[in-house]
């Protein structure tokens, strides 16, 4: 899960491209803007993982595997989160966490557009929030899970794993419109998922979105969601099964 190493040089190249890039398709063209020339305000990225905190996270996972969610949260994930948060509080500008250089480039581009100083760092903190959220859900505390995941989303707005877990936390509290929005964002973010988790996050995102549409009785949108999933993952058994179910429900409803 944890994103790669430090790649300062490629980031500079990506940064240059991002600075030149126009608005994404579909957006209204804004008047030309001047990119600030002050070097210190340019976004920077360093995805070097912290080995000590990485080890602490792994120890948290051992507590998870031992079936002790309370210990995992209190003795492992909370301290890791606190250390990271204290560290990043000292960073001037906005902090983003990225699992890959592609994700980092996306955030740097966002920061450039917003003329915002920003630093992109490794994803250990966000990972800790996601792990903690799962354990908090087991401990019947979806409110705390949601709060942590919303913070994680600020740090990693295009991390599909965060968005899927956030969708689940909303859904568990019957906050269906918020769940729908989170799953939609997850679907739009799967291109940035690391290759090793991409297939799973893709299924989770589409299934979360499709099943929420079904729960809302929006069968056309559910069908479109599963069809889109099948374009991304041809032959996926889950999407095919859900598509059949949507069609069955529609036939029954007539």
């Amino acid at each position, binding site marked *: 899960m944890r994103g790669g190493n430090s790649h300062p040089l490629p980031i500079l190249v990506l940064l240059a491209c991002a600075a030149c890039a126009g608005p994404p398709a579909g957006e209204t063209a804004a008047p030309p803007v001047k990119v600030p020339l002050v070097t210190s305000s340019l976004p920077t990225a360093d995805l070097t993982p912290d080995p000590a905190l990485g080890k602490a996270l792994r120890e948290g996972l051992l507590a998870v595997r031992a079936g002790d969610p309370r210990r995992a949260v209190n003795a492992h994930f909370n301290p890791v989160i606190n250390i990271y948060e204290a560290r990043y509080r000292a960073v001037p500008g906005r902090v983003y966490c990225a699992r890959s250089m592609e994700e980092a480039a996306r955030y740097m581009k966002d920061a450039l557009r917003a003329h915002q100083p920003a630093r992109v760092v490794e994803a250990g903190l966000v990972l800790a929030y996601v792990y903690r*959220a799962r354990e908090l859900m087991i401990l019947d505390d979806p409110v705390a899970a949601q709060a942590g995941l919303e913070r994680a989303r600020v740090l990693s707005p295009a991390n599909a794993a965060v968005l899927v877990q956030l969708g689940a936390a909303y859904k568990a509290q019957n906050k269906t419109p918020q769940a729908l929005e989170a799953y939609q964002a997850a679907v739009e973010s799967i291109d940035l998922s690391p290759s090793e988790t991409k297939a799973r996050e893709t299924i989770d995102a589409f299934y979360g979105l499709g*099943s929420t549409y079904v729960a809302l009785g929006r069968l056309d949108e559910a069908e479109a969601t599963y069809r889109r999933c099948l374009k991304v993952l041809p032959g996926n058994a889950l999407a095919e*099964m859900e598509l059949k179910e949507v069609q069955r429900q529609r036939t029954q409803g007539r």
Partner: protein
Amino acid sequence: MMRAGMLAVLLTSGLVFSTGHAWAQDQPAAQPQTQGQAAPADPKKEAENAEDQAMLRLLQEGTQALRTGQPRQAIASYDQIIATYEARYKNRKEKVYCGSTPAETLAYMVLAASQKQSAIAVAPTWAVAYFLKGFAQFDLQDLPGAKASLERARDLSPYNPQFLIELANLYKSEKNWPLALETYQAAKEHSAAFSLPQAKATNEMKAQHGIAFVYSETGKLDEAEAIYKQCLAMNPQDAYAQHELDYVTQQKAKQAHVH
């Protein structure tokens, strides 16, 4: 250990979706039956097929709940599946097995025949529901419940290597060494023939690790050492085997020092 296993199952094995459509109908039994053959428009069969599809969806629903930290919801889904199949098969006189692969199903039929027992093999959904329910119960720290569920999954699919490994892990956590050893050995024995292709190497490795661990905990250090060395010969990157081999070597050195 349990949840590590769960991730393996959910993320790599594809167990849940590997078999559903192929096993929508009962498979041939020890005494050949006609009900599984392609008979047109049998309303009961059609209803069962629709129910099987609904149960597969429920299995997926439970799995998603489990993955996002909602074990109670997951258990509710699994219990529905279990209740459906218990009701469907409760009056059957034959022994009922769940097979995940054609080879596994055939093996159960051979087993039943050798015991002069009639049997049927059905889709694995029922057994998988018990298996995953065990993980959800483990999340909720209900170890007796988890054990009962895993044992029920094993009873329905006695040759399924993943079920056996997770059950053995549970016995190991209870320090029930004889039962853990027996179950890991069964997992090892059945791994080659009955693992899903993508899980075969992992199942074999886990079974070997488990056997060696029990040996090292019961003082059979030479046997443990030999297995860990085998594991490392197969995969020099096997960090667990290396770590445990170091431990066994230390223990042997300590024993030599005492004597």
